[in-house]
């Protein structure tokens, strides 16, 4: 089965998840092709040429200078027609979420999104925010499309080698690009750098109400920890945005991360799963947070956290 890996770059800088996808493809099957898309991508294409690949396709056109779903889908469709891969693999990034389903649909195919594992012909993806796994099989004719979840394969397992760079200029017309991308910006400078914290106590929707937050704040105090939160807590304004951990917040890797009333959706996990010791407190024994936890307590946080504070005080 031949594979085409679609990498991701912005302004000449890689999205590092590209290399996780490259590593996965190299483990899956041969031959593996890789594509890099944009303008001024010669250096990036040369870098890809240092891996064990069949070819590196440098997809370039003035209309591809900035990412658009229209431009990327049209260009990749033409590349797929040229290369005829059986499997097209993407990193499951925000950008891929934006164009890959459109691309697959234009070829009358379905993308299997956010894949976490592959066994033979079966691709595994998660349902219900990580609570259930599903084995999925493609039916019908290739090409098949799949995007791979962040962290599911390891970028450091790519195999070096050498590959030719093949330039590819798609046919694109300005009127085909309907969306106009404008400025990229950040809302506010971050006053809190959670990256420096040794211990983080993080709170999720299990806390129910803003008025209950002191329960968890007390735990942070006895541990000398920084407070953090899952996204819904920050969306509600219960904690400042700058304390949000996850794909749209900060990435942290403290010595200890204590997740209280957090379910463990992948967008949260990517921001904290590099922590050295992970502790989870949740009343649902099947909550996905327990899958990454080193230690956990199944129970009601309103009973468990006060008990934990008392026990910590005894040993400190």
């Amino acid at each position, binding site marked *: 089965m031949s594979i085409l890996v679609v990498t991701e770059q912005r302004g000449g800088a890689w999205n590092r998840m590209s290399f996780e996808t490259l590593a996965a493809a190299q483990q899956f099957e041969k031959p593996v092709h890789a594509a890099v898309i944009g303008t001024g991508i010669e250096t990036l294409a040369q870098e890809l040429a240092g891996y064990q690949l069949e070819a590196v396709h440098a997809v370039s056109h003035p209309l591809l200078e900035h990412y658009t*779903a229209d431009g990327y889908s049209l260009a990749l469709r033409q590349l797929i027609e040229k290369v005829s891969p059986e499997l097209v693999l993407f990193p499951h990034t*925000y950008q891929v*979420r*934006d164009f890959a*389903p*459109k691309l697959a*649909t*234009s070829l*009358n195919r*379905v993308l299997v*999104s956010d894949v976490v594992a592959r066994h033979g012909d*079966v691709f595994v993806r*998660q*349902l*219900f*925010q*990580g*609570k*259930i796994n*599903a*084995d999925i099989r493609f*039916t*019908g*004719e*290739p090409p098949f499309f799949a995007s791979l979840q962040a962290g599911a394969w390891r970028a450091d397992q790519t195999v070096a080698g050498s590959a030719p760079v093949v330039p590819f200029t798609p046919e694109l017309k300005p009127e085909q690009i309907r*969306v*106009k*991308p*404008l400025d*990229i*910006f*950040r*809302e506010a400078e971050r006053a809190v750098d959670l990256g420096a914290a040794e211990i983080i106590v993080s709170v999720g929707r299990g806390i129910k109400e803003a008025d209950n937050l002191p329960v968890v704040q007390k735990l942070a105090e006895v541990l000398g920890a920084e407070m953090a939160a899952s996204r819904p807590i920050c*969306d509600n304004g219960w904690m400042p945005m700058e304390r949000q951990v996850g*794909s*749209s*917040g900060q*990435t942290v890797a403290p*010595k200890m991360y204590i997740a209280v009333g957090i379910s463990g959706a992948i967008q949260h996990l990517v921001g904290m799963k590099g922590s050295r*010791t992970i502790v989870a407190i949740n009343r649902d*024994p*099947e909550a996905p947070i327990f*899958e*990454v*936890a*080193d*230690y*956990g*307590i*199944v*129970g*009601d946080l309103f009973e*468990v956290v006060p*008990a*934990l504070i008392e*026990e*910590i005080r*005894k*040993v*400190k």
Partner: protein
Amino acid sequence: MMKIVVVIKQVPARDSFLRVDPGGAWIQESDLNYEINEPDAYALEAGLQLKEKSGGEVVVVSTGPARVASTIREALAKGADRAIHIEQEDVAGAGPLATARVIASALETEKPDLILTGLQSDDFGYGQTGVILAELMGLPHATIIMNVEVNGASLRLKRELENGYFQHVEMPLPALLTMQSGSNKLRYATLMGIKKAKTKEVRTIAGVQPEGAGTSIRIERVYMPGSSKQSQIFDGPPREAAAKLVEKLKFEARVL
């Protein structure tokens, strides 16, 4: 005056304890409660706010079995003007392309200016139905939208990117947007709204799968994921569990 279609989905309530069928074909649905998919609630809120600002109509569309009617009624009670219920039993097996095809054919005669939907569903989480629908209908789209501004025949949007970044984009109408959770405050249905909803039109049509669905995907089996780590999980009385945990943290992990 805009015609806004909001595509919503009913999913198992967020705090559900899920169990897999003995055969592993699907989850046990009999004892579940259902609610509107969270990002879809934000799509509905955005649609209602746009209507309040510039006038027009909000039409709610949902696919699924008879139980979906309760979620549709709730959307009408919050202020949607009318609804289309595409009745379909096996939503689980359909996959995002099949679902989008059914919705696209139901919308053929509607000709909306703007279609809004949540960025993904909390059950399947494909995150694709909206984007596929746009492609099938020949509309431009944008995903993970935090804010929508209508300027005549075009839109100015705030998109979320990774790591705390955002991007402004502009696009012409008609268009489709997938909305992110948390960007607005959700309204509650008023008593008046609930009363009015009873008289609003709900058109129920049969979800017929159009020909030529092409390659699809098949869910072979569902199961509980295993742990990727050697986790030590304590339960039982909170005090005992807490004591055990603290001992481990002090003497094994050495983080206390």
